[in-house]
């Protein structure tokens, strides 16, 4: 018999119970892929996008699943989106996270998908990214060597690329509770309700009376990464958010985003949506009942 063709081995599957155990596994197999909810990793595995020698599941690592209130809240990367939505205290402080979490996938997906997974997947359309960007969340990055913290805005480097180095993982997010005058909202447009965002926008405004003292605007699916829209923010800050301002904000959004054309939508439509959603979000936040 001639050369026998070998079947590729299925990846090994590890379920560490602690980060220390996870570090050891990663040291032994640096090409192993971390998996939490699996809602992105398994799809890409099935599509044959990568063939890791091992999968390291983080589901049993309890320390990743904490939610700790405080002036700055700590939200573990392993918290599922469903758990995030069910946390009443958190929902009261960060209603914008609830708005975004509710639009993420289906109930089944939300039960499995994690906050950290949504961010580490580094898709431009990650639903939790725009609200966390306007909340100016910080990413806690852990490795065997210790912990470091980077602003979430510096976490996304490109499509599927993050600031995580070899042997590092996202352990939690730190999010400061917003001041009393601040309010935020998240808007997402899909082809149908349950869809990957064609465009999404989170807007956070701090108002003093009718005057906007600070504006933070972030967008999803409108650039290679989830991103803050500085020009839009500048167009809103220091104004009374009148119609002329909104027109300028719309134009700024259409100018500032860098969308692509794909099978879901054209760049042109996404650009239009960027402006429309920014204006709509500001209007929603300044309606009398929102105050």
């Amino acid at each position, binding site marked *: 018999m*001639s*050369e*026998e*063709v070998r*079947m*590729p081995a299925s990846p090994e599957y590890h379920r560490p119970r602690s980060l220390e155990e996870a570090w050891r596994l990663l040291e032994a197999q640096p090409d192993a892929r971390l998996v939490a909810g699996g809602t992105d990793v398994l799809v890409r595995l099935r599509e044959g996008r990568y063939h890791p020698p091992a999968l390291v599941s983080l589901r049993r690592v309890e320390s990743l699943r904490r939610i700790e209130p405080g002036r700055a809240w700590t939200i573990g990367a392993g918290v599922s989106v469903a758990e995030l939505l069910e946390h009443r205290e958190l929902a009261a402080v960060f209603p914008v996270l609830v708005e975004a979490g509710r639009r993420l996938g289906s109930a089944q997906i939300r039960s499995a998908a994690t906050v950290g997974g949504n961010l580490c997947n580094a898709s431009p359309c990650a639903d939790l990214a725009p609200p966390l960007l306007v909340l100016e969340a910080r990413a806690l990055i852990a490795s065997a060597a210790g912990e470091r913290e980077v602003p979430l805005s510096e976490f996304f480097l490109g499509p599927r690329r993050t600031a995580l180095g070899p042997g590092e993982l996202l352990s939690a997010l730190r999010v400061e509770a917003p001041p009393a005058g601040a309010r935020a909202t998240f808007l997402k*447009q899909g*082809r*149908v*309700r*349950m*869809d*990957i965002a064609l465009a999404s926008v989170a807007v956070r405004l701090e108002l003093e009376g009718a005057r906007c003292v600070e504006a933070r605007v972030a967008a999803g699916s409108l650039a290679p990464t989830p991103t803050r829209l500085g020009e839009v923010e500048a167009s809103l800050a220091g104004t009374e958010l009148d119609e002329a301002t909104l027109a300028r904000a719309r134009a700024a959004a259409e100018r500032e985003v860098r969308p692509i054309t794909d*099978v*879901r*939508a*054209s760049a042109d*439509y996404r650009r*239009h*949506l960027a402006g*429309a*959603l920014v*204006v*709509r979000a500001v209007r929603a936040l300044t309606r009398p009942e929102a105050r």
Partner: protein
Amino acid sequence: MRDTTWIGRDLPRPDAADKVAGRAAYIHDLSRPGMLWGKVKFSEHASARIVHIDTSRARRLPGVRAVITGDDTPEIRIGFLRDNVALKRGRVRQQRDEIAAVAAIDPDVAAEAIELIRVEYEPLPAVFDPEQALHPDAPLVHDRDASGRPVTSNLLPVSVRHVSGDLAAGERAARYVAEGEFSTPLIQQSCLGTAGCIAEFDLRGNLTLWAKTQIPFLAQRDFVKALEAMGLEGRNARVIVPALGGAFGTGLDTHCYEYIAMLLAHRTGRPVKMLYTREEEFAFLSPRQSARTRIVQGCDAEGRLTFRRIDVLQDNGAYTSWGATYPTVMLIPATSLYKVANVWFDARIVYTNNTYAQAMRGYGNPEVTWPIERTLDDLARQAGIDPLELRLRNVNEPGETTPMGLEVTTCGLRECFDFAREKLDWAKKRGQQRGARRGVGVAALVHVGGSGRIYRSDGGGVILKLDDFGNVNVSYGGVEMGQGLHAALTSAVAEALGVTPERVHVNPTDTATCPWDVGTHASRGAFIACNAAIRAAAKARTKLFALAAELFAPEVARNLEAHQRRNPGYEPPNFDVGAACAAGRFQLASGVVTLEGAPAEPWLRLELARLLRAGHFRGVAGQMIVEEAFYEPPSTLPDWSEGVGNMSACYAYGVQGFEVEVDDETGEVTILHAVSAHDVGRVLHPQALRGQVQGGLAQGIGYALYEEVRTHEGRVLNPSFTDYKIPTAHELAFPVDVHFVETDDPAGPFGAKGVGEPGLVPTAPALASAIEDAVGVRIADLPMTQEKIVRALREQRAPRGS
């Protein structure tokens, strides 16, 4: 209408409990001892010469039991024009052409083996646009037909035309004319259950195929031909249909994967299962045909239609399915939706290197109803007549013979419009809500209601087998695919025979045990099955009453003795049982035989089961009650070159209406309210019927707003539900007023018409009309996506030329 006991009642669906509990066995659940898994290697080019296929590495993979190609297997020709072969030789004509296949011990090994097959191609010119395919210089998708004769054009030799009246006179009589070009996209049938089969040979060379099919008997014929091609003349192909998770037209043809499973099973001597993943289903199963339509129609000053001209161009893809007969059904709305005297219809079907298409629910009807209904709105605007009123001025009526020769026995279209008008609050809302970006719209449909004859037999048979316990086992050759056929058939058998529904058991569909049926298409399942069942039940009753004539008197005499033992001193009323039996005055209802006019004494009734046992256990005269009836509907096979013929025994009508709100920033359409009114002849099983109507509505909404198989050079770009969007509960969260008009058709079983397809036929034009009413935009090409609506709104706002 006849008084009935079970018809029209909401009985539990016989298939419901098993399906809800996960017990129903779909092809995905089935396994056979020693079974292997088959998988196909598909082409990576839309048009190419196959230079070389290297299967050596796949063959060496442990667990692989067979690798086959077109070069080492018999040629099996398939398809409506027999222009397709199960495994391609030398040439591929579409991205999904089957080049090789493997059988392996499990699906993973099979998938791995497929990856190891290397194919060398020499790309050839290709054509993807049906208009361009008609150009004289276009590359020929096929340069020879199935019998080897050279061909010179990509035009299919399938012509359906119709010319009636005097088109020029109709044009002269028109005061207003509306015209336009419209299109409908390639869409996926999106069955919950993906495609698959198991092929197994016995040692004598007979085949059993568990198939996801709607045409068990035409499939049997196709498979027997394939056995001949494999050198197995005189052997049988038995087709068994498992539970189906939807079919919607995908089961109207046999498929290459089924023949490949046969070849692999024959090569290995083992049962072979093929199962498409969702992605494979999207990329490698035939979607619904796309169509481009050019329409002109006109009306006089009063809004009465004077002429209609429709030209259809249909993209066939690389091979020909039964979907090539779409134009036969397009003729129905083209000639017979509303009264119109002078009609021209022509359809051209063109080969391209796109994925070959097949039929889907509605079968050409929505493709043509779309332009007809859209241009009616245009005529109404020109004539200054309310669009619903304009439709009523042309409404179809009973007694009419249409230009195609359709004989309208019953027609409840006017009542359907009346219902929609009232429920939509039409007079107050049409044209009145532009400020709120809200609008209402309606559209109508006509479809075959008494099957549709496109084959020389349009019949179907039913066998009723009664057993010693009073059970009635029903065998019918059509298929339950989720539509509620078995529910309707159960009610009809119980009603017609005179038993309770729980005694009726519909058998799985199997060509070995069921009588012939042409297939479950053309909304014909319940219409044919129930008509055949009524006839079989009448024969069974005749036999049962003949038995009763002999056995009723002695049996009730025993009843009387027992009754008297329990009730000493009981004196029976003065009733001559013998004379009544001799007169044959029997009744059978709810499984009990009685005598007409007899006193209501408990002993004077005979359980059907006892009568059956008495008939069975009587020595040499012993007898079984097994009755069959074959029902062939009173219709004619049209002459397609003339486009004339009464192809159905009756016709179904309906109206759908919507109220929508359109977001003029995002283009999102929110449906606030829907109305779906249908002339169903008679309601057989309300729950199953509502399911059909609401399911059709949901599918129609997908067709109208969201769905499109996107391709680039014949390759499917969105082969998953991630990027092929169908409506979900959120998009369908609006009230629906469903209404049934019962016109009691003389050909229908208990008066019923077929209703499987109508639910999606007028959906898109009704929604389009409501969208236009809301924000003034008109979109000619389905689906009406948010993006298209936004673009149209911008064009509306921008001055021309800017």
